[in-house]
């Protein structure tokens, strides 16, 4: 009976929940990765820069996950979703969880995902889901800054010394295989496109690709060849790196449940 009521009030409730978790988890995981740089960046300005990006991403994750918790309606809040779920329940893009490596590798990962988030948020501005549209309207302003930072550094490193060029090209070659997942639509995406909630991923791919090509060209980097799609972070199947990251991120809440500042 209650299921029937729910399905009439929101026919795409399950898909909406899944979609919000995917966006929120991607921001959260990427934000946590960037936070690992705090105190370790090559220069103070970059330390502040990465920490600022991290803060924005965690803030976006909070908005998305608290909305997800409401849609879920099981009495969980954004903290419960962030700190008390195990790796298989996380549905972030696999690229976001990849380890930082050196500064160049972090910048490559960041640029690829900033450009992706920019397209997604842009598409969500016209979402039939007004709350999601308002979150996107907030996030897109921050994402423009992020992309300016990451693409600026990618150009400096790619078109820098022989050593910096080699390092970012290597990172690009290694991380490129995770980019196919960025645009691989499944039944969740399709249901939300049909409901006017989410933009069509295939339509975003062209613009993302053109933007990335432009940056790579300026950075004197070579775009790697596409490889068959085989990573499924957004379906909860992760590389081994996520579990290690969560162990650190969730340690405090797991050890002292309910602890507050």
């Amino acid at each position, binding site marked *: 009976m209650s299921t029937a009521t729910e399905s009439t009030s929101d026919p795409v409730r399950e898909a909406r929940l899944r979609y919000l978790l995917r966006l929120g988890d991607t921001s959260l995981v990427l*934000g946590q990765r960037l936070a690992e740089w705090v105190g370790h960046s090559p220069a103070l*300005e*970059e330390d*502040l*820069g990465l*920490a*600022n*990006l*991290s*803060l*924005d*991403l*965690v*803030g*976006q994750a*909070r*908005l998305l996950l608290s909305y997800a918790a409401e849609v879920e309606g099981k009495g969980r809040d954004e903290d419960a979703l962030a700190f008390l779920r195990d790796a298989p329940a996380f549905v972030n893009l696999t690229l976001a969880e990849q380890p930082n490596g050196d500064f160049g590798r972090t910048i490559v990962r960041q640029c690829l995902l900033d450009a992706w988030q920019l397209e997604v948020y842009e598409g969500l501005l016209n979402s039939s889901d*007004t*709350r999601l*549209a*308002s*979150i996107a*309207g*907030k*996030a897109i*302003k*921050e994402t423009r*800054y992020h992309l*300016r*930072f990451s693409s*600026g550094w990618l150009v400096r490193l790619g078109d820098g010394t022989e050593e910096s060029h080699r390092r970012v090209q290597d990172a690009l070659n290694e991380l490129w295989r995770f980019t196919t997942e960025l645009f691989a639509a499944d039944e969740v995406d399709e249901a939300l496109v049909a409901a006017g909630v989410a933009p069509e991923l295939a339509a975003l791919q062209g613009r993302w690709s053109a933007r990335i090509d432009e940056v790579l060209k300026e950075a004197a980097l070579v775009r790697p060849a596409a490889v068959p799609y085989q990573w499924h972070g957004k379906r909860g199947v992760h590389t081994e790196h996520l579990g290690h990251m969560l162990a650190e991120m969730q340690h405090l809440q797991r050890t002292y449940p309910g602890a507050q500042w």
Partner: protein
Amino acid sequence: MMAAIGDRERHVWDILESVPDPEIPVLSVVDLGIVRHVRWVTGSNGQSKLHVGITPTYSGCPATEVIRHSIATALDQEGYVDTTLEEVLAPAWSSDWLTEAGRRKLESFGIAPPERSVANPRHLFGVPAVACPRCGSRATERVSEFGSTPCKAHYRCTSCLEPFDYFKCI
């Protein structure tokens, strides 16, 4: 009657003008443009209740929690004990909402105010020429896109050599 409602709203705005931003204490929360509305809403019990709408500057800005707390405390002290603080996300906060008074306070505090306005196409292409808050020279350079708080970038004046914060245009 309308005047009376205006007066009680004015009183609340006056209180909020005394609530400082925790990171840039020369600015009040009103100067920052983050208070979106002050209004009384009549509940189902017929009681009229004060609602204050606040919008975050940046989604992850840690000051947001402190600001909520400061606003609630300030209103509480003035007798508004049962205020509802509402989070307003849309339209998203813009540095254009900084008041004139706020811009002047920022500058005298040593922080360059945002180049207006967001709609200015100059901001879509390249870096705006920011005037040094110390000597007024526009011969300045950006040290880092990101400064000591999410809303600021780090600049340096090449005329008087002053390092300074620039309140970003967003």
